[in-house]
């Protein structure tokens, strides 16, 4: 908790170009005695009532057989994975907004309408789109913007002004107890997968990580997280299916503290924000955590499916009301979905966007950056043909 210490900024895209190495150096001491740590893990595991499944033996088992042929062939190493991920974003950037606007077409109603359509089709939403368009329109009226290229720049400025403030990467301070990340969201948004990727980023950054299998409801949710734990060679704390989520996470926290773990990431069951009892359950998880550390959870991360439409706003708002969010990750941006609803969320909640998910592989997580996100937003491909 000493302020002068270097903060560990988790920057996925930087790992590709080797900038992670300085983080590694910070943590080299821990990384180098990893072997003995695992041994002591086993001892700790035996002492606690909690089952710790991804210890030495399990890890080996996983390497031998459990790990499925992963991530559709994007498994040729860190560089390739990340490059591919970034490539996805960049090529979208090249093909889209710029091409569309770079010509010096005169600005007419058609052009503005087309732009508006693009924002709508990116899920920016009617209200946010109207706002953006009207301030663009004002610029045009003041003749600050003369042609389509200038309009493109103006739009970019508008969008950037909305998203830049929420481009706040997650930083892990060097603190005494474990840094706890509680991961929440609606069903199927990508929580467990994001945790798997996050664990890898953290361990690559030299941090020791533990996962808590707080989804005790969905079929094979525990096994899913355990597979990710094994992939990353990090311990997973779990109880049986049907156990109390808060108690699993509590146990994990105790265990993480005892073992001097840097980061504890807790998975939770997907739940719709409209389900009051399930939202209460999350509040209980938070309460229980704060008993062991009044400052925990240090990050309450909502995972949003990038394909979600305007309902995302209600999701963010209601999760925030129930448990107080501190960050957001937007997944599945490797497809055709654009995730434009984050503009509305940024405006109403100012919630930092920490990461974006760009695939199912362990490296397909990037630190959110407003500019490439915006450049990938507006697509000028032919609209879908409606039969």
């Amino acid at each position, binding site marked *: 908790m000493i302020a002068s210490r270097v903060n560990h900024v988790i920057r996925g895209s930087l790992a590709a170009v080797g900038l992670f190495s300085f983080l590694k150096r910070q943590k080299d001491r821990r990384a180098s005695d990893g072997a003995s740590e695992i041994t002591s893990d086993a001892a700790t595991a035996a002492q606690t009532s909690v089952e710790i499944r991804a210890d030495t033996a399990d890890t080996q088992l996983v390497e031998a057989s459990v790990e*499925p042929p992963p991530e*559709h*062939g994007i498994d040729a190493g860190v560089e390739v994975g990340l490059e591919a991920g970034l490539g996805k974003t960049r090529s979208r950037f090249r093909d889209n907004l710029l091409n569309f606007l770079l010509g010096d077409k005169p600005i007419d109603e058609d052009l503005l309408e087309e732009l508006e359509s693009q924002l709508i*089709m990116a899920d920016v939403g009617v209200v946010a789109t109207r706002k953006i368009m009207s301030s663009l329109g004002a610029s045009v009226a003041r003749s600050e913007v003369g042609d389509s290229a200038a309009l493109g720049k103006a739009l970019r400025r508008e969008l950037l002004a909305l998203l830049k403030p929420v481009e706040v990467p997650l930083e892990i301070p060097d603190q005494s107890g474990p840094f706890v990340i509680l991961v929440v969201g609606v069903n*199927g948004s990508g929580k467990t997968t994001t945790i798997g990727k996050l664990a890898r980023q953290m361990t690559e950054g030299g941090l020791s990580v533990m996962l808590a299998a707080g989804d005790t409801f969905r*079929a094979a949710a525990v*096994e899913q997280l355990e597979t990710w734990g094994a*992939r990353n060679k990090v311990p997973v704390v779990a109880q049986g299916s049907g156990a109390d989520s808060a108690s699993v996470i509590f146990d994990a926290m105790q265990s993480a503290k005892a073992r001097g773990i840097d980061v504890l990431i807790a998975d939770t069951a997907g739940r*719709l924000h409209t389900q009051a009892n399930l939202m209460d359950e999350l509040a209980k998880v938070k309460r229980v955590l704060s008993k062991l550390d009044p400052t925990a959870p240090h990050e309450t991360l909502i995972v949003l499916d990038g394909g979600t439409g305007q309902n995302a706003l209600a999701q963010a708002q209601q999760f925030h009301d129930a448990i107080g969010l501190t960050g957001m990750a937007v997944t599945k941006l490797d497809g055709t979905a654009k995730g434009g609803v984050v503009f509305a969320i940024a405006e109403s909640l100012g919630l930092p966007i920490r990461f974006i998910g760009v695939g*199912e592989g362990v490296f397909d997580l990037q630190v959110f950056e407003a500019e490439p996100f915006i450049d990938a937003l507006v697509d000028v491909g032919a609209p879908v043909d409606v039969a």
Partner: protein
Amino acid sequence: MFDTLSDRLGQTIKKLRGQGRLTEDNIKDTLREVRMALLEADVALPVVKQLIDAVREKALGQEVIGSLSPGQALIKVVNDELVNVMGENAVPLNLATQPPAVILMAGLQGAGKTTTVGKLAKYLKEREKKKVMVVSCDVYRPAAIKQLQTVATGVEATFFESQVDQQPVAIAEAALAAAKKQFVDVLLVDTAGRLAIDTEMMAEIKQLHSALTPIETLFVVDSMTGQDAANTAAAFGEALPLTGVVLTKTDGDARGGAALSVRVITGKPIKFIGSGEKSDALETFYPDRIASRILGMGDVVSLVEEVTAKVDHDKAEKFAKKMQKGRAFDLNDLKEQLEQMASMGGMAAMMDKLPGMANIPEAAKAQVNDKQFVHMIALVNSMTPQERRFPAILKGSRKKRIAAGAGLQVQDVNKLLKQHQQMSRMMKKMKGGGMKKMMRGLQGKMPPGMGGPGGMPGM
């Protein structure tokens, strides 16, 4: 989840009230509002455009009936078009094939495929008394096979084992062979979630399709999906001969515009909706109900009802006045009512709403269908003004002439006269306080806030 769309549209359309005749400009404004409402509900832009175009086209050609304002007539066009788009009847699963009937699931990551397989297995076992086997061809997602196994155990369906080191097509073929051998009725095949732009994975599911030749290929889509529903539905629809759609997570508060998008873009019926995580949270999808759920429980249908009720009310008042003056209910009055009904669409829906009609015996009502409407109107049209006013003068030769004039039979004329008699008898009964009472009854049928004292003064 659909209530919000209703609300939004309801508010939009409420704004129409109290305006005079809508000019083309006014229609444009209104349509823009409707457009915004649909977009906010996540209906995909191309679909919204199509819908608005259809509404505009129909609205502009339309005669405004009775006391409706053009704006109110527009409401009805919007309503009708939505119903039209969603389809009219529930489309059940098709299992009519040499067993095992194979059902293949397809969709994006996390849409709810595996959960839906469990729900369908339970449904088919319990409701359709089928012997069901399930298999997972998802060798990618961690613990996907285990997930399906757990789900299958929960609903006591036969689980065909697969391994992550197997090829999905090989798994599918083995499962199909086993299903045949074990005389399974239905084989449900779960697949990995995939992006429509992932050419390798799309090729894989095409291969699965040709290996299995499923009778049902269901596209599973999350009801919270935004604009991308259009791209994705189009791509899956192109890659696979889809037979239906399952709309999941409808237990939330998403406005559910994806339902419209996917329906329009794939042209395939939504067969089920998922309404929870548990295995029994599967509901048959009734498009007419959903259309009325999209518009239905909220204000829109109420408003349409208000509109029709308003027409009824105006007419009823006219009748009431007529009858208080002692004038008989003549064939002109009947024709007017018939025309009103015909112009408002379906007979059955309108029948109960119209004053007088509600009191007609069921048997008499049953004789009337929409085609008969047209016939009856044609018959009255071929009568002289005197005949219309004094039906009693209609005897053999006149009847023959009238029937011929309408291209119908004398017995059709008799039917018409009988119906008129029944109605006028009723009208007589309602003289005095009767009509008022009946209108109050009608009012009671209207949703709160719509036909209330403020809404319809003097009732």
